[in-house]
């Protein structure tokens, strides 16, 4: 029942919104991992980011994809919590430092999930890349065989930036890069990861957005 709702949601309204209303320009879609264990690392500007990434997945791998999201934000009321965990399929993590957020992600990877991580931590300033948090490196350190695929998204922060509810259509660019290898050092990995996403951003000339 719940899975059916989830498929219907992604097959119907999400694809309608993402493909018809917004429109995507995806580069190297074949590099997107559809089977776990794998980690997708993307920049984060909009609530549409997760919907869009999930819409790129074949419906058959939908159940494997777990966007890692803040427990305090998405579990703040019953309905949102139901929607976030049952329809979107988020992996809620506690960012206040209670339970260990890494343990949950590790367990999900062990089950063969595709984790979606936003190392900026929050949506932040529209269309600007904020400081990366180290959590992703700590996770990769303990799961060093798992491919970490960088993804750059542009345009969704214009279509639905933080603080608004009105979706204004813009075409969205999604560039997928080669997996970022773990070289044994957290700092090196973080700078490689950031470098990979910045290199994707440099592929196109994005118009100014003030």
């Amino acid at each position, binding site marked *: 029942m719940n899975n059916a709702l989830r498929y219907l949601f992604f097959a119907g309204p999400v694809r309608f919104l993402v493909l018809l209303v917004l429109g995507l320009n995806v580069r190297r879609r074949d590099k997107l991992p559809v089977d776990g264990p794998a980690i997708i690392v993307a920049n984060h500007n909009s609530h549409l980011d997760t919907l869009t990434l999930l819409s790129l997945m074949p419906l058959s791998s939908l159940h494997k994809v777990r966007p890692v999201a803040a427990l305090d934000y998405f579990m703040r009321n019953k309905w949102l919590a139901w929607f976030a965990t049952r329809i979107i399929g988020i992996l809620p993590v506690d960012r206040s430092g209670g339970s260990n957020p890494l343990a949950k992600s590790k367990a999900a990877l062990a089950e063969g999930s595709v984790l979606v991580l936003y190392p900026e931590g929050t949506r932040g300033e529209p269309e600007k890349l904020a400081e990366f948090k180290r959590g992703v490196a700590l996770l990769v350190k303990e799961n060093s065989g798992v491919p970490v695929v960088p993804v750059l998204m542009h*345009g969704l922060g214009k279509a639905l930036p933080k603080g608004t509810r009105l979706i204004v*259509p*813009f*075409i969205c660019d999604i560039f997928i890069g080669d997996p970022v290898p773990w070289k044994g050092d957290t700092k090196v990995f973080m700078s490689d990861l950031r470098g990979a996403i910045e290199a994707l951003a440099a592929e196109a000339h994005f118009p*100014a957005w003030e």
Partner: protein
Amino acid sequence: MIERIADYLEVPVDVMAAVASVYVILAAASLIVLALGRERQPELAARVKSWWVMVTVFAVAVFINQAVSAVFLAFISYLALKEFFSMIPSRRIDRLAVFAAYLSIPVQYWFAYTAQFGLFSVFIPVWMFLLLPTIMALGGETGGYLKSVGTLSWGLMMTVFTLSHMAYLLFSGDTANVVAGGAGLLFFLVFLTQFNDVAQFTWGKLFGKRKITPTVSPKKTWEGFIGGLVTTIVLAMFIGPWLTPMDWQWSAVAGAIIATAGFLGDIAESAVKRDMGVKDAGALIPGHGGILDRIDSLTFAAPAFTHFFRYFFYP
């Protein structure tokens, strides 16, 4: 057979035959690609393949049912406007104005669908022209105001107002064109515009030497333009009397207008792309680029032909 299908679809039989001949041209193009070798000409192969898709989508959507055609043509404007807004620099504060610009599409196409020429002609150039700067002024941000008003209004005119003339022709043309109706007029306009694009490109490739606008569109040459112009005029003289109430002389004039306006629309779009520093406006159509790259010539040719034809031939 073709008459029975035409009758069933309520499409003038001449238009059916015209669409059928486009498929003959496409088949010939595909044979040429096969002869040249698909691997050696991947760009050309992708382009021809996309033509098959575009012709089919256009023919099915436009000639099957009136309401479907209205929605389809409005959707083309929507795609073009979205591509334009995604290409230009914009201000976050103007999201509401951008949203209002999108909302004008169904309204404009409703006026085209119901053939209300007065409202169709003034809705965007007058009412939207006043509404957009109003919303943006009320937004309260003056830095970059004039530039934003200018780019948004221009984009709306270029993608919605100009292209909606296709719908106006289709829905108002039946009374003016007893020969083949609004569908015949639309076919005449769109086919000749697209044909002219290909003809100018081909003549330019074969004989192009003298550049017309080296800084805007370096591949455009006098040889290409004039070759395309003459070819389009000749073709117009043949199909005009068959699809429209124009005799061969009027059809030649119409062909010249379409070819020239198409060329000018093309370089106007090229100037915008160069200004924005992009090669293509989008990546929607393999081998062609974005939708704006395919319909740039129509943005000028559609209003130019419509107003020419309306002035001389509407009752």
